[in-house]
């Protein structure tokens, strides 16, 4: 048995984990490695207020796991080997820091108990801003705050049998393969401080083997370190102007520290510094803004970006044992590049955004003879989009239509008995596809954020008023309102999907699960 653990640290780590969850759900990870594996995600963050990246990730994992019974039925034996092998998250655990809603660094250090010299040192190292920052909202790009917390917390928790760290070894024997990936940023606060500290402590503690036969597990530990790839507005308490200098200092640290020699593999992933925008409840995109005066219960919730997808692909490859090679030599430190150019005429100026026009910018194998069965991430991303559009838009709209039962899609007649309010049943978690819908919505949010931040040419989600092009959901809903199948669902004709769905074979005992799994089968692009 194999066990893969991602330790996601800080907001960036959480968003990398979101991309990993999406890739696992798309079947990408299962196609890269043998299907018999366990996937765990461990969350390390201070920012635990509602609406934060961490809460969003937890919600995403919950949606995937709840939908799994519907996503894992083999509906066609002939194509079973190449089917969409969605994978949920087998376990998720959160490192709970010893802070409450109002904790600040001063509270943790118990400033009142320090003597004068200690107090002076504390004040010299940490400015007023740092000392009074409410920790529950994260370190806000200040690694000096986080580094104090993590080292101490690791030492306290390591020997705890049911604790955050020991539970990683719960269900594996010494013969089993355990791969652990630590992911965080090098430029932020929580991630930049937690990733190197926790990875190094984990490796050394495993090697010491004080809590059991853990030495072999130290051999498969890797790092995903995110270089600056976004900007936030000026009016925030995260100073993104410091990202470059923070990163430079962090890279210098990695260059001189022993950490890189101790890990099996490290990938550094960066991108153009794109301005981050998040969709609000009214559906309008607005800049991510974190005022100093923002409420304590208001979390930092940033959008998903292409760089995180790139990192998640690298994580999947590492879990599958596919470490990038150059001239057949495994790379200890790897920087996935979207594009290498030897022609100066094709250079992109630093101030111009690099538009992603091909999925080939995301390397999924070493190429040549080393290229495995998976040649591109394209269909994995697009199958998710197709599924979200068909389940969340097309069939949902057709369920909402006030039309005669005999003129409903045939697959509805196969799955449900004749009824008036089909939409209510359709959206129900018991009699309908409610859990799969929640999964689709969660995935579509992720896709839409990628689309908005540079992948529009590949995902085609957002509309364009200049060309009178509606948002893809609107276009799909419009077609569904007419009962038309005259549209292309990201490379697969809608008519082809509906024709196959109309002949879907279902077990009356679990008809809705068969409906969802059949739709998944139809959303996989196969050679015609």
């Amino acid at each position, binding site marked *: 048995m194999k066990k893969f653990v991602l330790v996601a640290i800080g907001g960036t780590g959480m968003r990398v984990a979101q991309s990993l969850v999406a890739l696992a759900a798309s079947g990408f990870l299962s196609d890269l490695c043998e299907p018999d594996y366990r996937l765990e995600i461990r969350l390390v963050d201070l920012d635990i207020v509602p609406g934060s990246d961490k809460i969003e990730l937890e919600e995403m994992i919950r949606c995937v796991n709840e939908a799994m019974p519907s996503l894992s039925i083999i509906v066609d034996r002939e194509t079973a080997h190449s089917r969409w092998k969605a994978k949920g998250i087998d376990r998720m655990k959160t490192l709970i820091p010893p802070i409450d809603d109002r904790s600040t660094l001063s509270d943790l250090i118990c400033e009142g108990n320090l003597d004068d010299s200690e107090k002076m040192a504390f004040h010299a190292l940490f400015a007023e801003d740092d000392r009074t920052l409410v920790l529950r909202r994260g370190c806000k790009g200040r690694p000096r705050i986080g580094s104090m917390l993590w080292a101490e917390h690791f030492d306290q928790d390591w020997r705890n049998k049911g604790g955050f760290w020991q539970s990683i070894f719960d269900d594996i024997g010494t013969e089993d393969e355990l791969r652990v990936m630590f992911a965080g940023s090098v430029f932020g606060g929580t991630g930049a401080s937690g990733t190197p500290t926790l990875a190094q402590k984990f490796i050394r503690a495993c090697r010491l083997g004080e809590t059991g036969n853990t030495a072999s597990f130290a051999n498969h530990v890797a790092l995903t370190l995110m270089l600056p790839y976004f900007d936030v507005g000026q009016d925030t308490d995260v100073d993104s102007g410091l990202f470059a200098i923070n990163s430079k200092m962090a890279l210098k640290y990695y260059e001189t520290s022993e950490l890189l020699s101790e890990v099996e593999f490290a990938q550094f992933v960066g991108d153009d510094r794109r301005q981050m925008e998040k969709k609000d409840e009214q559906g309008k995109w607005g800049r991510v803004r974190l005022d100093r005066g923002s409420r304590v219960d208001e979390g930092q919730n940033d959008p998903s970006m292409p760089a995180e997808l790139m990192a998640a692909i690298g994580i999947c490859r590492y879990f599958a044992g596919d470490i990038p090679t150059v001239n057949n030599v495994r790379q200890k430190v790897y920087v996935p590049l979207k594009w290498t150019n030897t022609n100066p005429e094709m250079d992109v100026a630093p101030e111009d955004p690099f538009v992603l026009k091909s999925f080939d910018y995301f390397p999924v194998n070493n190429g040549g003879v080393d290229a495995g069965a998976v040649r591109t991430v394209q269909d994995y991303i697009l199958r998710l989009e197709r599924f979200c559009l068909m389940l969340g838009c097309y069939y949902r709209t057709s369920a909402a239509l006030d039309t005669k039962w005999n003129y409903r899609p045939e697959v509805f007649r*196969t799955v449900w008995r004749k009824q008036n309010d089909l939409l209510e049943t359709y959206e129900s978690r018991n009699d309908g596809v409610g859990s799969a819908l929640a999964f689709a919505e969660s995935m579509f949010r992720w896709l839409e954020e990628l689309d908005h931040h540079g992948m529009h040419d590949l995902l085609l989600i957002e509309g364009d008023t200049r060309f009178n092009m509606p948002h893809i959901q609107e276009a799909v809903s419009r077609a569904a309102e007419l009962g038309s199948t005259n549209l292309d669902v990201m490379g697969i004709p809608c008519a082809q999907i509906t024709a196959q769905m109309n002949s879907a074979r*279902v077990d009356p005992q679990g008809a809705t699960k068969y409906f969802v799994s059949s739709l998944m089968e139809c959303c996989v692009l196969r050679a015609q």
Partner: protein
Amino acid sequence: MKANVGKRVTARVIATLCLAVALALIPPMIYHNPLYAAFYLDDAAKEIGSQFSDNTRWIHLGGIVVIWLMNLLFFITNEKKGDYGRELERRTRLQGLLNFLLLVVSVAAMIGYRFMVNGEVWIGTYLPNAQMSILTLYAPYYTMALSAAILWAFCMRAAPATNCAVRCYLPKKIDERMKRAERTR
């Protein structure tokens, strides 16, 4: 999944084809002898009787073939589109209307042919005036109408395209069976 689409489509096409062949060939064979016998025994009447019986058979065959082809065209369109709702409803209505029109046209073609053979002096000249003889003479007409109606109903209610509802009890049960999955997880 594609295999099941193929299976359901093939079953429907074969079923309608078999029914169309049966409806095109069998009813004219049944009414052929009684119709021929209804005419007077003289040579002129028998020649007209033979001519009428043979040609109505061809008209019947043609009518049924045209109706089957028209329904097949709708079947292919429905399969190609796989749609539902207003679009399907509109197309289904058109299909029903065209079936009706073809039925009327086929019967009208037979009536027209009958008047082409001899428009004025038929009954009483070649055929006895008895009610039974007249009813026998009309056999091709109502057989045509009945056959066309059966084919129309079968194509639209028992073996429609896979995006349409099956409304006949037995075909519905058979179709439900074809859509039942084995439990494999």
